[in-house]
């Protein structure tokens, strides 16, 4: 009998151990996967692997930055001397503009003459720059290939444009997305913290126990509403309201995102800070009241300072939820990848970008890797937030 029990205990122990091991390994694997997919971006060039950029071999330039290439192909720069070359106008050649230079008959039935034609075209025009598929590059290529710089972390973080699919060179600057995330989150904090704290104080110190028993489940219910429902509500109610109120062309703005996220962060902020306030020892409240302090003075001078760390933890946890929230934000912020200047502009957040674009990004491609790198940035932000919470929680005041 005794042996059987021991075997049972061993088995139970084994199950517990393996569950926790599996959980930990899964978490680690996910993080490893995230980094493996994302870090690869920085060994990539912002140009499709199968394409090259080439110039006439007489062109003295040997390299161009991604930005210069973009400017040239957007025809913002039309003379070589603007990018450090000789004074000659730039002729842009891409496969889409082929009809300007060559007619269909010259190319052969299966475009079999295309490589040679492009080659001689490039050779004949000293001012030409070409963006061509490697398979149309002639065997004895007479032009000069321009190498494209790899994507750097600094460019990625500080780049102001996010056009991950443009040709020839993709713009992978996530600054607008980071700022969009920050704007929406900060707005959410500004909305959620005052309301959340007021409600928490009311529930912890002012409301009668009966009212508190009614309020608490309602607030917890708020946390269990699926985020898509918040998004739907935002889209149908909030967005038109903002549009009318501020007389905007579109109501999908950072403000709408902030309000929705603020509402979503409320339950966390309220319940965590209310719990913190509840832990204020009765003896401290009594001491304060006995010294002639009224209820409000007691709340301000004793209860809030005592539960400061708990309140802060609640607020930051709420923010953590707001920063990572995807669906609701995707639905109401308009998703324009531009750097926002007011709350009444559409913005695009990091999670919304990933959710919206991952489906369209070819597996393993540049865009795909860029989205994973974006996910790493998001992970770092939320991880930092969680670390902060842990740090603040440890700083609890000693019990009196």
């Amino acid at each position, binding site marked *: 009998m005794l042996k059987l029990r021991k075997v049972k205990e061993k088995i139970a122990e084994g199950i517990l151990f393996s569950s926790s091991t599996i959980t930990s390994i899964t978490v680690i694997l996910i993080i490893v996967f995230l980094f493996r997919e994302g870090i690869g971006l920085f060994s990539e060039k912002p140009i499709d692997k199968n394409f090259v950029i080439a110039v006439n071999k007489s062109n003295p330039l040997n390299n161009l930055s991604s930005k210069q290439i973009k400017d040239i192909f957007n025809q913002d720069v039309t003379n070589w001397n603007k990018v450090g070359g000789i004074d000659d106008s730039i002729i842009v050649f891409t496969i889409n503009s082929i009809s300007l230079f060559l007619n269909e008959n010259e190319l052969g039935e299966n475009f079999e003459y295309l490589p040679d034609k492009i080659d001689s075209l490039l050779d004949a025009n000293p001012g030409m720059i070409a963006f061509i598929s490697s398979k149309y590059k002639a065997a004895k290529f007479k032009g000069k290939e321009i190498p494209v710089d790899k994507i750097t972390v600094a460019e990625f973080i500080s780049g102001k444009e996010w056009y991950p699919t443009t040709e020839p060179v993709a713009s992978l600057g996530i600054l607008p997305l980071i700022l969009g995330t920050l704007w929406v989150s900060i707005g959410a904090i500004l909305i959620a913290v005052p309301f959340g704290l007021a409600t928490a104080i009311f529930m912890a110190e002012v409301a009668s126990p009966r009212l508190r028993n009614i309020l608490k489940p309602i607030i917890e219910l708020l946390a269990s509403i699926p985020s898509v429902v918040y998004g739907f509500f935002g889209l149908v109610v909030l967005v038109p309201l903002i549009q009318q109120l501020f007389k905007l062309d579109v109501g999908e703005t950072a403000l709408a995102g902030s309000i929705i996220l603020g509402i979503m962060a409320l339950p966390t902020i309220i319940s965590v800070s209310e719990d913190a306030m509840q832990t204020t*020892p009765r*003896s*401290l409240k*009594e*001491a*304060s*009241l*006995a*010294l*002639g*302090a*009224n209820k409000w*003075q007691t709340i301000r*001078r*004793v209860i809030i*300072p*005592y539960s400061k760390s708990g309140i802060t933890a609640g607020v930051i946890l709420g923010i953590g939820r707001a920063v990572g929230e995807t669906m609701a934000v995707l639905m109401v912020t308009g998703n324009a990848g531009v750097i926002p200047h007011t709350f009444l502009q559409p913005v695009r957040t990091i999670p919304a970008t990933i959710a919206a674009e991952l489906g369209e990004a070819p597996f393993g491609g540049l865009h795909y890797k860029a989205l994973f790198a974006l996910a790493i940035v998001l992970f770092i932000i939320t991880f930092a937030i969680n670390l902060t919470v842990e740090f603040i929680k440890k700083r609890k*005041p*000693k019990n*009196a």
Partner: protein
Amino acid sequence: MNKAEAIDVNLYYKDFQALKNINFSAEPNSVTALIGPSGCGKSTFLRLFNRMNDLIEGVRIEGQVLLDGENVHQKNIQVDALRKKVGMVFQKPNPFPKSIFENVAYGLRVDGIKDKHLIEERVIKSLKQSALWDEVKDKLKKSALELSGGQQQRLCIARALAIEPSLILMDEPASALDPISTAKIEELIYELKKEYTIIIVTHNMQQAGRVSDNTAFFYMGELIEYDTTKKIFTNPENFRTQNYVTGRFG
């Protein structure tokens, strides 16, 4: 006129009657000890004078509780103003998690006093009165929680003195302290009665005997006997009092 008086006081906690028809008065500049077994209502009675029973739901009070001749339970009285006239020291030292200085200054700050000199003066005076000044004068900015239990309790007394109350209520102020700290508190009580009227709840018979001038014995919500401490301890009228003070039950 008597500092603190109770006339025909009944107190009900929901259906339970915790105090039964109490008549009591404390003389100015004296120490009155309230003794009796646990649950006899002595702490509840003490808390009548600064209306701390208001914090408990379902409490109903009949009769009059007078402080300097004024009924503290009448409708138009401001409770926070009343509490500024009554200092209270609790069973367990309960300093705020603030600096030593801020603990003592607390009552003044919530009273809206902004004058820094006045606050400093009062803090120093109170710390001296509570015999703590010499021990803390170099670390007023330090957290009060760094003090020992006995020091914390004297700090709580200083905090109560800073609002210059006319009556001081002490609810077993030494029950959580070691004998040396207890002796210091008792000495302090003896000093303080020169200026203040003190009512003290205690479980400790010897303590009641040492510090008080008068003693009231409570039993099952009734005030059984109230007389000079000497009489209560040497020649009580009531057999229950006799049994209690001689330690036959408790």
